[in-house]
């Protein structure tokens, strides 16, 4: 892989020879390969888009990088900054994964996992609070993000369980963007947004990139992809199911 | 002299030795409940079978015995137990606190201060102060062993929460020599301070529950409380109606069916002694007039 312009700087994320399959014990142990020999790097300030047809393993790669999926082999090396020591998230030590999630990797999933009775504002502020930021400061920042995403103020203090899909998604985005994790994983963040909010998200992504955040994302939305992508990786190249 | 029908003081010598060993152990570990092999006595539980066994074990031929029940020498219980020992041990009995060498009591400590050489024997119905909140004997024993006494304050807390003050008025728990929490038997809390540093030997016997415990002379006995709700004894608004005594524990006596009542010393010996000394209470008319009045009525 070419590293010409980044020669002196280390990648924040290095995925090396990663393979992943599922063994379905409830289906007589049938093995479903997902990806093989995944290799790529992600540097500060770039937005790498995982491309390829549906079912090729894009979301699986995001989940492996976030530690939701265990990998069969290979390494997923994470650095907190370009000069930091790499730590192997792929080894699967739960405490390391938790540390890396707290310090290095943010994640905006497709769906918000709503917690009963916790307000939208608190859900957004929580990643900051858990990193020791003062509650009021975190809440102010959360409110700012939600306002920017045009979430009606009346909803701030309500639990998002009853929100519409787009409203939930905006809460989810705000929660993912509130921290300054060096690596940010985006799984179709704009899927259920209208054009206006989509543009807000695009500018938020650009601001993250300007600040040096490394972004790895899946965007089915062509205009968003064109607006933010600095590089595209075709996941089909890694797909273990190409033959299928 | 004919052969006595009973061994001296009713119990056989082996039993008395067993009880004395328990008493000695109790004296050695003030406030600790020593199990003993309580015997059947020729009276029902609740009549003071524990106290009677302790008294029987310590009584000698030269002792002078006083027995009180609620402070009175002349109630059924006191009279019966006194008669029991007069018959089985042939010991001298008295109602005078100062003359007694052994005082068996139910529910009171005499008003006259006890002196060195005297022994006071308490009749105890329930020796376990923690039972109200922890019914398991195995658990309360461990709690005593490990000095886990938070629970006893839970009871006092409940008192204050419900009544605004510590409403426990009798069997008020005490801590002995900063170690064991002890139930002082159902004496009024008014009497609790008398246990502290008393020159007399204090023995406690629980017959049904088969426990003996003791306070050797000059033992430190502290009534439990809260910093902001300190222990205090009952105070009476008026002196004894008969002997005009203040600072003593008074009983309420209903005098008629129209709400008339008077407050008199619960310790009958104390009251009588004071009257003999010439003290007169407001409820006690001049003797001549009183007779005339009663005749008229």
């Amino acid at each position, binding site marked *: 892989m070419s590293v010409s312009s980044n020669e002196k700087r280390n990648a924040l994320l290095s995925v090396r020879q990663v393979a992943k399959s599922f063994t379905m014990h*409830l289906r007589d142990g049938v093995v479903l390969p997902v990806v093989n020999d995944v290799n790529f790097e992600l540097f500060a300030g770039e937005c790498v888009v995982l491309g390829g047809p549906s079912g090729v393993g894009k979301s699986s790669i995001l989940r492996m990088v976030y*530690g*939701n999926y265990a990998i069969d082999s290979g390494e997923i090396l994470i650095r907190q900054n370009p000069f930091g020591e790499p730590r192997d998230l792929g080894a699967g030590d739960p405490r390391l994964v938790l540390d890396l999630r707290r310090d290095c990797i943010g994640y905006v999933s497709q769906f918000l996992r709503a*917690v009963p009775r916790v307000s939208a504002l608190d859900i957004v502020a929580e990643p900051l609070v858990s990193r020791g930021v003062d509650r009021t400061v975190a809440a102010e920042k959360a409110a700012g993000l939600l306002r920017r995403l045009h979430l009606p103020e009346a909803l701030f203090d309500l639990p998002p369980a009853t929100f519409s899909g787009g409203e939930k998604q905006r809460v989810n985005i705000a929660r993912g963007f509130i921290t300054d994790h060096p690596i940010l994983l985006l799984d179709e963040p704009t899927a259920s947004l209208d054009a206006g909010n989509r543009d807000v998200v695009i500018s938020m992504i650009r601001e993250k990139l300007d600040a040096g955040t490394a972004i790895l994302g899946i965007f089915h939305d062509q205009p968003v992809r064109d607006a933010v992508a600095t590089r595209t990786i075709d996941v089909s190249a890694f797909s273990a199911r190409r033959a299928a | 002299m004919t052969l006595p029908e009973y061994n001296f003081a009713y119990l056989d010598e082996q039993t008395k030795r067993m009880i004395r060993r328990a008493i000695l152990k109790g004296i050695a570990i003030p406030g600790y409940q020593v199990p003993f092999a309580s015997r059947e006595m020729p009276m029902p539980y609740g009549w003071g079978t524990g106290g009677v066994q302790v008294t029987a074990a310590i009584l000698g031929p030269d002792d002078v015995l006083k027995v009180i029940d609620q402070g009175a020498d002349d109630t059924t219980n006191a009279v019966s137990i006194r008669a029991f020992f007069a018959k089985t041990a042939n010991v001298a009995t008295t109602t005078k606190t100062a003359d007694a060498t052994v005082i068996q009591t139910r529910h009171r400590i005499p008003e006259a201060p006890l002196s060195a050489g005297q022994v006071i024997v308490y009749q105890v119905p329930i020796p376990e102060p923690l039972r109200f*909140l922890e019914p398991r004997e195995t658990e309360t024993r*461990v709690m005593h062993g490990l000095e886990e006494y938070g629970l006893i304050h839970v009871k006092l807390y*409940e008192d204050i*929460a419900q009544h605004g003050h510590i409403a426990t008025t009798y069997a008020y728990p005490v801590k002995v020599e900063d170690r064991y929490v002890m139930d002082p038997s159902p004496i009024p809390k008014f009497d609790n301070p008398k246990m502290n540093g008393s020159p007399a030997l204090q023995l406690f016997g629980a017959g049904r529950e088969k426990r003996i415990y003791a306070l050797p002379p000059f033992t430190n006995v502290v009534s439990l409380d809260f*910093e*902001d709700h300190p222990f205090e004894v009952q105070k009476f608004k008026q002196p004894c109606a008969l002997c005009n005594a203040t600072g003593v524990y008074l009983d309420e006596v209903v005098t008629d069916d129209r709400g008339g009542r008077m407050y008199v010393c619960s310790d009958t010996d104390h009251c009588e002694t004071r009257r003999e000394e010439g003290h007169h209470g407001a409820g006690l008319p001049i003797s001549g007039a009183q007779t005339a009045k009663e005749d008229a009525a």
Partner: protein
Amino acid sequence: MSSPILSVSNLERRYGDFIGCTDISFDVWPGEVVAIVGESGSGKTTLLNCISGRLERSSGSIRYNMRDGRFPDLADLSEAERRFLMRTDWGFVHQNPADGLRMRVSAGANVGERLMAIGDRHYGEIRDTATEWLGRVEIAGDRIDDKPVAFSGGMRQRLQIARNLVTRPRLIFMDEPTGGLDVSVQARVLDLLRGLVSDLGLAVVIVTHDLAVARLLSQRMIVMKSGRIVETGLTDRVLDDPHHPYTQLLVASILES
């Protein structure tokens, strides 16, 4: 945070020939919630009772990191020390609140008991602290003198939680804390627990058969079957990518919501 707060190694508990749990090793770190999941009879409650000192183990070691820096096996502590731990540094939340409460004394005394046990002797302060904790578990202050028998199941469970947390313990054991509650009440208790656990930085070992409870509260998960650990890992990893056949069966059995 450089060492675990609780370290279990090669733990076994037998009932005669029957295995309650065996070959159990895991660590719990400060501030971490570990869920032990499995169906009835999988040995999870036996395990919980062993590591919380409520049940004797047959073999193995259970070490606890004391506040004074010692890291002894629980078996090497005196009974006094062990019991002191249990009512100060530890908490135990029972499935049935009646097992963890004194049903015949007031809510305030239930919460205050641990304070009195460690020597608090100021009624007013004990009451203030009890009121504060009732508030934290969303029980109105004017219920402080009511007895738990007058409380609903959810309130009792919240009272039990307050009673456990008042001494600011570092490690809490929970046995199906929402198991006996209506679903609507469950959510409230769970959310409350979740908030308190993160606010107080508690380490928690929670036994549950409800994977949704585990997902909501825990960072790490231990899956048990027939007395043995069959899978461990990050909670969302175990639930999103279960490896052991039994875990896959458990996850596949969750109703989609």
